[in-house]
């Protein structure tokens, strides 16, 4: 208890010191990868830059990159809180328990945890509906494939990733009934060597479309080398690989959310919330569909994007069965968020098993 008290006093003293010094709001960012990964962490850092741009002198941002999940994350966040951070964004699922531990010690500091599910009075969670982007991606993939084999580089068998696979599959199948998914699990978010190997394996197995749920551009490079293979930017636009192999992308757009939450801390209106925004709110964006995609396919994909944005269409709309054939959604029925957040099954038609 002593340390907790000590920490709290120190934080309080610092908090007062910083507010007395200047009305600068200090915002910390904890990244799981390097800011130059070109994907996940890169986009979070773009969000940080948006905060700097929006508030200029009124805000000070700090970040630490490549922080392993576990005790190291806890130490880095404690250190940020000790140094007077008012708001801390922890940008990886695996930081969840560390965020909870540190948040308990620093009740005055606000925490924002990406893609997690544990909240507290001073901990909010936020995530993006990436699966909406997957629907658009699946549509393009289903139309573009000639071998009818789509390769998928999956990271970890968690609901977020499984949702993405299902959404992409449903929409590829809708436009191309012969389509088949080959899925490789790499158990990493960022490992260019492993990702490149996975892409090569999939291409050797006949895949001419590669989808990825990992953060590096290595699969793009592998596809470019192989030729006649298309890819999609993941988390970031990865436009340097356009127009081929990268034909489009799903972009995480964290800036507006980060600016909004920082503003709330400045105004003293910050509250613990769970945010799950998608294309409509602008948290998920579809990157430019390149000239390599025929006009009618592009139009179809954009129409789907606009329908999702307008709230007219939900990517998980029945009739849909689970992989084992049991009915999941009835005709016209839409999946509820609870099921989606805990999704641990494939939809009918996907082959293979989710690793257990």
């Amino acid at each position, binding site marked *: 208890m*002593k340390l907790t008290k000590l920490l709290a006093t120190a934080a309080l003293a610092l908090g007062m010191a910083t507010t007395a010094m200047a009305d600068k709001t200090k915002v910390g960012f904890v990244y799981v990868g390097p800011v130059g990964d070109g994907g996940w962490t890169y986009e979070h850092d773009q969000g940080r830059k948006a905060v700097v741009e929006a508030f200029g002198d009124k805000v000070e941002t*700090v970040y630490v*990159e490549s922080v392993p999940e576990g*005790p*190291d994350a806890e130490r*880095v966040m404690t*250190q940020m809180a000790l140094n007077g951070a008012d708001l801390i964004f922890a940008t990886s699922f695996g930081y969840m328990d560390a965020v909870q531990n540190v948040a308990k010690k620093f009740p005055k500091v606000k925490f924002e945890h990406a893609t997690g599910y544990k909240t507290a009075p001073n901990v909010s969670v936020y995530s993006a509906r990436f699966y909406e982007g997957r629907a658009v991606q699946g549509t393009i993939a289903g139309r573009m494939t000639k071998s009818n084999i789509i390769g998928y580089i999956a990271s970890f068998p968690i609901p977020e990733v499984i949702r993405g696979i299902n959404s992409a599959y449903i929409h590829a199948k809708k436009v191309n009934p012969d389509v088949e998914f080959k899925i490789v699990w790499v158990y990493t978010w960022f490992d260019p060597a492993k990702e490149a190997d996975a892409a090569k394996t999939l291409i050797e197995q006949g895949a001419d479309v590669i989808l990825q749920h990992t953060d590096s551009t290595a699969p793009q490079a592998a596809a470019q080398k192989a030729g006649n293979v298309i890819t999609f930017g993941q988390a970031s636009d990865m436009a340097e690989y356009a127009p081929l192999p990268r034909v489009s992308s799903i972009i995480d757009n964290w800036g507006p959310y980060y600016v909004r939450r920082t503003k709330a801390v400045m105004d003293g209106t910050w509250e613990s919330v769970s945010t799950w925004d998608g294309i409509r709110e602008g948290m998920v964006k579809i990157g430019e569909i390149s000239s390599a995609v025929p006009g009618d396919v592009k139009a179809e994909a954009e129409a789907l994007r606009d329908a999702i944005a307008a709230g007219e269409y939900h990517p998980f709309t029945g009739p849909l069965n689970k992989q084992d054939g049991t009915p999941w959604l009835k005709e016209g029925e839409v999946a509820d968020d609870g099921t989606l957040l*805990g999704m641990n099954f494939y939809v009918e038609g996907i082959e293979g098993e989710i690793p257990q």
Partner: protein
Amino acid sequence: MIALEKRPQPSQVWSVATPVIAVLATMVFGGILFAVLGKNPVEAIRTIFWEPLFGEHSFYYRPQLLVKGAPLVLIAIGLSLGFRAGIWNIGAEGQYIMGAIVGAGVGLAFYPMEAWFIFPLMVIAGALGGWVWAMIPAVLKVRFGTNEILVSLMLVYVAEQLLASMSLGLLKNPEGYGFPGSRNLQQYPSAHNADLIEGSGMHWGVVAAMIAVIFAYVLLNRHMRGFHIRLAGEAPRAARFAGVSPPRLILFCMGLSGALAGLAGLFEVSGPSGQISIDFNVGYGFTAIIVAFLGRLHPFGILLAGLLMALTYIGGDIAQSQMGLPAAAIQVFQGMLLFFLLAFDLLTNYRIRIGKAGVA
């Protein structure tokens, strides 16, 4: 001309001085690197080495040094015994993982029962897990003459796959909404390796590391087995004549280093980390190899080296967030430390002679 001349005896003075010189050289060249990156080098070096020890928030960082250093020291002590005897266990990372899995598995098997004997059982299981994993390369070497470097290293990747499988299957938290990772042992008092004094960073792993240091010192200096270990490394032929049995020595050294790595894993998973997760291992098993050599394979040297390594990690994180130094620069900095150590090591066995070429 500058020539290198082999010393008849390794220099005592230099073997103590080189680590210090290496650290100083790292500071100088690291400072140049930071300056090139446009940061104030003095400020950066001060942040890395001074801030965690004597800075404003050192009351928090000092205990963290123990938390970060303990697993490094514990593993490195075990490795150093083998390294001295010329037995190369490179797979401590895998043994660390297995210790954590087996130890946490035993603890979770009792959940939610509360009893005093659960944690001691976990400790035994953790050591056993690491021991068994190290016995695979040891037995293969003794029976079939396989290379223990390759086998132990490859087993790290097997252990990582097992770790992923455990996080997603057998040990997955049933109340975790389908997300990977076990229950958090920090919330299970009987299995929690908590700070012995709240906020001191002193958990059982730190105590174990201290005991290991003393045990290794006594073993090497006062015990026949320790003498055999040193003899086998320094004069293998003489060791053979002295009746040292290489297979026994291999089984002993591999087993002990595996058990210590397993213990480190168990103390980590039940304490600072709290849960088995896919990314549970963060490279302690590999960093410990550096620590073992940085500490000159001497128990007390390893203790200091472990703390120094922990210092660069913690100070490095502070430098990142306070000065905006990129993580890669910090890693280069740590790499320099090992590089300079190995480079200056030359002076222990060789002397530099400045004079005309070909004179000697």
